[in-house]
Each structure stands twice: as C-alpha cells, then as structure tokens.
C-alpha cells in the first residue's frame, strides 16, 4: 500500500508538468495581458511593468524562467494584489477551500448514503418515491439557486445565520449546505441503485435465511459491498466540490481558492492562475490516490495497479 502511494506520488510529477505547460501556453496564446485593464496607464509605464515582471521576453523564455522558479518552490507574485506572493495568497486560501470542501463532502455522505439506503430497502414505498423525487430535483438545481434560496430564508427572512465571509463556525453552515446539496442527491441515487443490486445477491439471502435481523443484513452484508461504487465516485466528487466552490465562494464572499481563481482568470493574473491551477491538479491527484487505497481496504480482492 505504501509502495502504491509512493508510486502514485512519483507519477504525479509529469502530470503536474503537463498541466503547468498547457495552462502556461494557453494563457499566453490569447490576447490580453495583466496590465490591459488599467486603461489610464501610459504605454511607457506598461512597458516598464512588463519588463519588471519579465513579460516582455519571448514566451518560450518566460516558460523556462517560470519552470526554474517553480522548481525552487517559488510560485511567483500576484500582479493585482500588490506586494503579495502567490504562495502567500494560496496559504490563506487553501485551508478555507479545504474546510469548505470537506465539510460539504461529509454532509453529502451523511445525507446521501442513508437516504439512498432507506429508499432501496423500502423500495416502492412512499419513502422511496419521495427520496428519489427529491434527489432527482437535487441534481437539477443549479448551486446558485440553492445558495440564493438558503440566503433568502435564513439570512434575509429569518435572520438567523450569517450569509457572507468565513469567520466563525456559524459562517460555515449555509455555504457547506449549498455545496453539499447536489452531491448528496447524486450519492442518494447511486447508493440506492447499488444497494438494490446487492440485495439480490445470494449471500444476502443466505444471511437472511440464517435468521439474521433485517438491519444486520442490510448494514453488515449489503452496505459494505454496495459502498464500493460510492467510494469510486468520492474522488471525482471531491473534484466537483472543489470546482463547485467557485459558485459558493462567489455567493458567500468566501476568500477561498475558487474566488481567487476566478478573479485571477478575469485579471490575467498569470502567476496566480498557474498557482491555483496547479493546486487544483495536486488535490485531484491526492484524492484519486486515496480512493485507490480505500478500494483495497473495502474489497481486498481488487488489485490496483499504480
């Protein structure tokens, strides 16, 4: 298992390099630079700024400069947030986004898996029909609608919860719920389908005929097997939660990575775009590696080749 993890980490370096290269040339290939928005700057000053940040050099040379800095762990500086390095911004933004993402993931699992299991066990009942309608509706609602709805109910109408910024645990409730909503719905659908399939297996019938209680059968013999597909999607789901956080961070004015990424892209803040993209890619690689390890714990028959 340790060997698998080490191998995963080593193969991730070329992947990160590819991501860095693609993003770098994509950014430079399109018109517009970081100082275009400041319309009032005289051309001489823009030229000086470009020279200061070495943006006047050929793109290939800039790429080499960037990579050699990156190899030393220097992510560069932001052109828009004056005097702040990218590492500085990221070190504040990453914990916020990770907190938000994991709270939402936890909520989604806590809500989605039991809902899906209950629906499958009581197949065809009103509980099943209601749960499935809610979850189909749940994957059909844009995140901003859920967010706006929650803000309107709890923030504006009832005035019980704060609707912006990221300061106390109270601030975390609405954003995490917003972010968790559609993954929870998705997990409920997936869990239901998976549990239904496992419930038809022979070993479940055997467990029943041994006289095992209903819930013991469901929890011990069905759920563990039914959760394998659920674990499979947790990796991509974490990715969805990170990207979903663009919207949630925008809605609730949360200073996380999604927010910095969106403003960086709009401002052509090259180094900040690179920094956030690389962090996103690294998070994806790590979550996928964790999922592969989790597979083996859940189902030792599965041999994962790194």
């Amino acid at each position, binding site marked *: 298992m340790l060997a698998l993890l080490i191998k995963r980490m080593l193969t991730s370096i070329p*992947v990160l390099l*590819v991501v860095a290269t693609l*993003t770098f040339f*994509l*950014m430079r*290939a*399109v018109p517009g630079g970081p100082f275009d928005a400041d319309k009032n700057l005289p051309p001489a000053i823009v030229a000086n700024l470009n020279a200061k940040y070495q943006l006047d050099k050929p793109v290939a040379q800039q790429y080499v400069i960037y990579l050699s800095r990156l190899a030393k762990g220097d992510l560069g500086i932001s052109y828009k947030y004056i005097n702040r390095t990218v590492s500085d911004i990221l070190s504040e933004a990453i914990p916020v986004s990770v907190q938000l993402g994991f709270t939402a993931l936890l909520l989604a699992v806590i809500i989605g898996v039991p809902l899906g299991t209950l629906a499958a066990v009581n*197949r*065809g009942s009103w509980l099943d029909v209601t749960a*499935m309608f809610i979850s*189909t*509706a749940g*994957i*059909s*609602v*844009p*995140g*901003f*609608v859920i967010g*706006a709805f929650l*803000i*309107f109910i709890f923030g*504006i109408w009832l005035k019980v919860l704060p609707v912006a910024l990221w300061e106390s645990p109270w601030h975390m409730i609405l954003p995490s719920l917003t972010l968790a909503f559609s993954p929870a719905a998705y997990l409920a*659908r*997936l869990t*239901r*389908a998976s549990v*239904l*399939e496992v419930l038809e297996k022979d070993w479940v019938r055997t467990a029943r005929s041994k006289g095992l209680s209903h819930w013991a059968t469901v929890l011990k013999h069905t759920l563990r097997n039914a959760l394998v597909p659920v674990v499979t999607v947790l990796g*991509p789901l974490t*990715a*969805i939660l*990170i*990207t*979903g956080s*663009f*919207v949630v961070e*925008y809605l609730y004015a949360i200073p996380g990575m999604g927010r910095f*990424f*969106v403003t960086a*892209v*709009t401002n052509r803040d090259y180094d900040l*775009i690179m920094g956030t*993209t690389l962090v*996103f*890619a690294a998070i*994806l690689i790590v979550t*996928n590696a964790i999922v592969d390890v989790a597979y083996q714990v859940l189902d030792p028959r599965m041999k994962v080749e790194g």
Partner: protein
Amino acid sequence: MTASIDAGLEPVKAVSRVELAFTRLRKIPSAYFAFWVVCLICLLAILSALGVPLSPYSFDQATDDLLVGPSLKHLMGTDELGRDLFARVIYGSRLSIAIGFVTAGVAFLLGTTYGAISGYCGGKIDTLLMRGVDIAYSLPDLLVMILVGVLVGKGTFGILFALGLVSWMGTARLVRAQLLQLKEEEFVEAAKASGQDGFTIVMKHLLPNAMGPIIVALTFTVPSAILSESTLSFIGLGLSAPECSWGTLASDGWRSLRSYPHLLGFPSLFIFMTVLSFNCLGDGLRDVLDPRTRLFKG
C-alpha cells in the same frame, strides 16, 4: 391455399424502433410527462427565436412599472428598467435551449467520431486516444470551462467552445466501449467477409446498434450544458448583457435578491424545470433504450 393460412393469423403491424421506444416511454409516467414539458419549453424557445410574440411586451421594452412584483399585468413582475420579466424569460429560453442543443450536437459529432475511431481501430491507436481522454476527463469541467471560456473570450462563441470542449469526452468513451463490444459480433464478421470497408461497417452496422446509449447520454448532455451556462453566467464568466439567457437574468436578479427576489426566482424556476424535465426524460429513456446500464430499478 394461402388465403386459408392467412386467415388464421393476426395481422402483424410493423413497428419502428422509434415507435417502440415511444410506446414504452408512455408507460413511465414521470418520463412521459417530462417529455411533454421538454417539448413545450423547446416550442417556446423556437417560437421566440422565430419572433412570434408570446408576451404582450417585447424583451427589451421599458414600461412605466419599475420593479413591480408579479401581477396580472406583468406575470413575473418587471426589472429596474421596467422591462417585463416574463417576456425576458421567454426570450432568454432561446439562448439557453440553443446552447444546450448545440453542445449536445458537438458532443455527438466529436464524441462519436473520436470514439468510433478509437473503438474500431483498437490496439495502440485506441490506447493513445483514450489515454488523452482519460487525463482530460479527470479535470473538473467547471475549471476547464472557466480557464478556456474566459480566455477564448466571453460571449456565446466562447461559452459554446468551452462547453463543447468538455462535453464530447463522455460520449467518446461511451461510443468506444460500445464499439469494442459490438465489433466482436458475428454480423460484423459477415460484413467484413462480404468485402465492406471499415467506414461502411462503422456507419451502417456498428453505430446504429450503439444509438440507444448515445441518445441517452445526449439527453443528459443538454441539461448539464444549460446548468453550466447558467452557472458561468451567474458568476460573471459566461454571457453578460446585452445577451439574454436564463443565466444572465439570474445573475442580474442576484444583485437585488434582498428587495426583489422575483428577479432571481423566476429565471431560476425555468432553469430548474427544464433541467429536471430533461433529467427525468433521460432516466426514462435509459430504461427504455439502454436497460443494461440503468441506475434505477423498479
């Protein structure tokens, strides 16, 4: 002689695959209802694109009623310039629905071609083509769309480019998997033996047999494109005024949520209804056309 044999048999009516699918779809109430809602919304979008006046007001006509709530005169109220929201939502359906269908079209053309080449050729070509898709597919869609869409340029073209770029990969994987399986069938061997070339075999024998799952996948592509467009427009990275889609309307409405919730509520309701209908229709079609991969049983 023949007459006496015929007399004993029920006349059998030939049923096309489309008819058969439709008959089965009718038996799933939620999907059948969703089908008609989808038809209705598409009809609204088409009529509005053809310039048929569906509302007493035009989408950019300012009236004297500024920021009024829903009433008989203005079904969904008006915005800060006195423009009738109902007229704007109907007009906005044009762009939102078009983006959904164009994206599905791109996904179909690109994805089917790529997947068919990969699946039919197999071997090294397949490994190479699919490795590329695997890497790109693992990146979160919204991340790629923001990066590409904004850099290509805001506006309809930029967003279609971004949506097209991320949406074909799922179809490509699906078509490849289907073809890998189908090309081992005997009718393909027969076609090869009769001297047909690869292109004909793919077009005439393989793809028609893979159409069911492809149609199901495309039914889910439309709502996800509509969702992505509205989300991007909402955070200010998609379409913006003077373009008018459900996403831009929702984005405008968000700024005045505190005082005038109807401005966000009605466009959101339309996005929700449309996406929900497409998803229900997709679930139904999956049961009808592609029973092996269905997520729901019973």
